[in-house]
C-alpha cells in the first residue's frame, strides 16, 4: 500500500516536472528560433536556401553571402560608422552619467527625486518626435550628417537610463571608505579616481555595454540624421537592402547576422553584470 501512495505522488511530481521543462523548452525555442534560423540560413548555398523543402542545417555550408556583403556592399563602411558613433556615445554618456550618478548618491541635492523622475520623463518623448527638431537644429548648425550630430542624438537615449543605472551602483559602495580617506586628507578628486571608480567598475561596464548596444541598434535617429551612404550606420544601410521590392535574401540574411555578432560578443563577455543592472531601473525605448 505504501508503494501505491509513493508512486502516485512520484508520478504527480514527475508530470509536474515534465510540464515545467516542456514550457521552458518552448520558451527557449520561441526566443531563439528566428535568430538561429537566420544564422543557419546565412551559410546555405543559394540553391539550398531557396529550395522548396527547407532544411535546418545544410550539408555544404558556404560563406559566399558574407563574402559578397563584405566586398560588394558598403557594409564595412557602415560598420566603421556604427563603431565610431557607438564609442562616441558611450564616452559622452558614461562621463556625464558617472558624475551625475555619483553626485546623486553622495550629496544632498534639492529635489533629488524630481531629477531622477525627469530621466523617466525623457523616455516619454518618441524618437521620431524629438528627431524632427533635432534634424532642423542640426541642419541649421551644420551638424547634420556628422558623427558628432548622431552621437548627440544617441546620447539622448542612453543618458537617462545610464544615470539611473550608475546611481544604483554607486549606492552599493559603502561610504566608510570615502570618509576614511577624507579624514586622512585625500582630496575628493583623488578619492573619486582611485577609490570610487575601481569599485564601480562592474556598473560602469554594464552602463557602457548597454549604451553601446543602444547606439549600435538605433535606427530612427540614424535614419534621420545620417543621409549619405558613406556616413550611414549599419542598421540604416542594411534596412535599405531589406526593404527593397525584390530582396536579395542571401545577402540580407548574412547582413542581419553580421550586424548582431558584435553585440553578442560584447554581451557574452559582460554577462554577469547585466540583468541586475537592467532590473534596477535601466530602461530603453
Amino acid at each position, binding site marked *: 500500500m505504501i508503494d501505491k501512495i509513493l508512486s502516485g505522488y512520484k508520478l504527480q511530481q514527475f508530470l509536474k516536472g515534465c510540464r515545467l521543462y516542456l514550457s521552458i523548452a518552448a520558451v527557449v525555442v520561441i526566443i531563439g528560433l528566428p535568430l538561429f534560423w537566420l544564422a543557419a540560413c546565412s551559410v546555405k548555398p543559394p540553391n539550398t536556401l531557396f529550395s522548396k523543402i527547407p532544411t535546418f542545417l545544410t550539408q555544404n555550408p558556404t560563406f559566399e553571402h558574407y563574402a559578397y556583403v563584405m566586398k560588394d556592399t558598403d557594409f564595412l563602411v557602415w560598420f566603421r560608422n556604427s563603431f565610431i558613433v557607438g564609442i562616441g556615445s558611450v564616452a559622452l554618456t558614461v562621463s556625464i552619467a558617472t558624475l*551625475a550618478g555619483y*553626485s546623486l548618491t553622495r*550629496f544632498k541635492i534639492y529635489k533629488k527625486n524630481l531629477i531622477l523622475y525627469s530621466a523617466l520623463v525623457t*523616455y516619454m518623448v518618441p524618437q521620431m*518626435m524629438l528627431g524632427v527638431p533635432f534634424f532642423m537644429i542640426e541642419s541649421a548648425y551644420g551638424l547634420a550628417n556628422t558623427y558628432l550630430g548622431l552621437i548627440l542624438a544617441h546620447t539622448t537615449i542612453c543618458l537617462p537610463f545610464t544615470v539611473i543605472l550608475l546611481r544604483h551602483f554607486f549606492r552599493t559602495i559603502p561610504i566608510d571608505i570615502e570618509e576614511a580617506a577624507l579624514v586622512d586628507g585625500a582630496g575628493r578628486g583623488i578619492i573619486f579616481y582611485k577609490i570610487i571608480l575601481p569599485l564601480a567598475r562592474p556598473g560602469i561596464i554594464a552602463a557602457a555595454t548597454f549604451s553601446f548596444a543602444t547606439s549600435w541598434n538605433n535606427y530612427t535617429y540614424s535614419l534621420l540624421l545620417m543621409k549619405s551612404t558613406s556616413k550611414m550606420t549599419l*542598421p540604416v544601410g542594411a534596412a535599405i537592402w531589406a526593404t527593397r521590392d525584390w530582396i536579395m535574401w542571401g545577402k540580407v540574411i548574412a547582413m542581419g*547576422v553580421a550586424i548582431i555578432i558584435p553585440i553578442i560578443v560584447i554581451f557574452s563577455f559582460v554577462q554577469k553584470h547585466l540583468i541586475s543592472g537592467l532590473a534596477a531601473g535601466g530602461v530603453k525605448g
Partner: protein
Amino acid sequence: MRSDRWLGYALLLPYFVALGGLFGYPMLYAFQHAFYAKGPFDVNPTYVGLDNFFYFFQSPAFWHSLRTSVVFACGSVALQMVIGTGIGLLLNQAFRGRSAVRGFLLFPYMVPIVVTAIAWKWLLDPRYGLFNYYVSVMAKERISFFSSPLLAMITLMIISGWQFFPFVTINVLARLQVIPTEVYEAAKVDGASAFQRFIYIIIPYLKYVFFLVLLLRGIWMFNKFDIVWLLTGGGPAKATRNLPVFTYEVAFKEFQLGKGSTLAVVTVIPLALVSFFYIKYLLKEE
C-alpha cells in the same frame, strides 16, 4: 559631505546641460516651429499661426494614424504583458539551468530592430519562409502575412511581442524574487491552491510593477517608428501607418518640417500630461 555642497551641483551640471541642450532646446524649437510652415523650397519658415493644427484636426489621415497608434499600442502591450508575466512566473520557479535561461531571456530585447525585421520577414516570407512551408503542407495554401491590413497589424503585434516581452519579464521577475518563500509555504500549509496563491499573494506584490511597466510599454509602443516602418512601411495601403510613421512621411518625405513640428507637439504634450498624472498616482501607491 556638508561643506562642499556646491560640488554636488557642479557634478550634476553636465547632466543638466545635456538635458537642457538635447531635450529642452529641441522641444522648445519644435513648439515654436509648430506655428510655422516650412516646405521643401522655403529658405525661411513662414508664420502661419494655428493653421497647421487646424490642418491636422481636419485631416482624416491624421485621425487614422492616431487610431492606428492606439490600436497597435493596446494590442502589442497586451500581448507583451501576458507573455512577459507568464514567462516571468515560469522563470520564478527553481529548475536546473535557470540562470542560463534568464541570461538568454534578454536576447530579443537586445537585437537591433533591423535584424528582427529581417529575421521575421524571412521566417514569414510567402515563398521561402519556414512557416509558410508548414502551412502549405497542411493547408495547400500560403499565407502572405503582410498583405492584408488586419493580418499585417496582428503580425506586427506578435513580432513586437517577441521583441519586447523581456522588458516585462525582467521587471516582473525582479519583483517576484522579493517575495519570501515563507509566504508561499504558509499558504500551501493553509491549503491554498496554486490559483489562489496566485491571486492573493502574487497579484498584490506585482501591482506596482505591473502598472509601471504597463505605462512604459504603452507609451513606447504608441511611439514606435522603427519596427512598424521596417516591417510594413506603413502597412498595405497605409493600414499600419501609426503616428510616428505619419510624422516621418509628412516631415521627411513631403519635407513639411513646420507641419512635422506640429505633429511632434501634438503627440508629446498629451503623452506628457498622461504620464505626469499616472506617475504621480504611482508614486502615491509606493
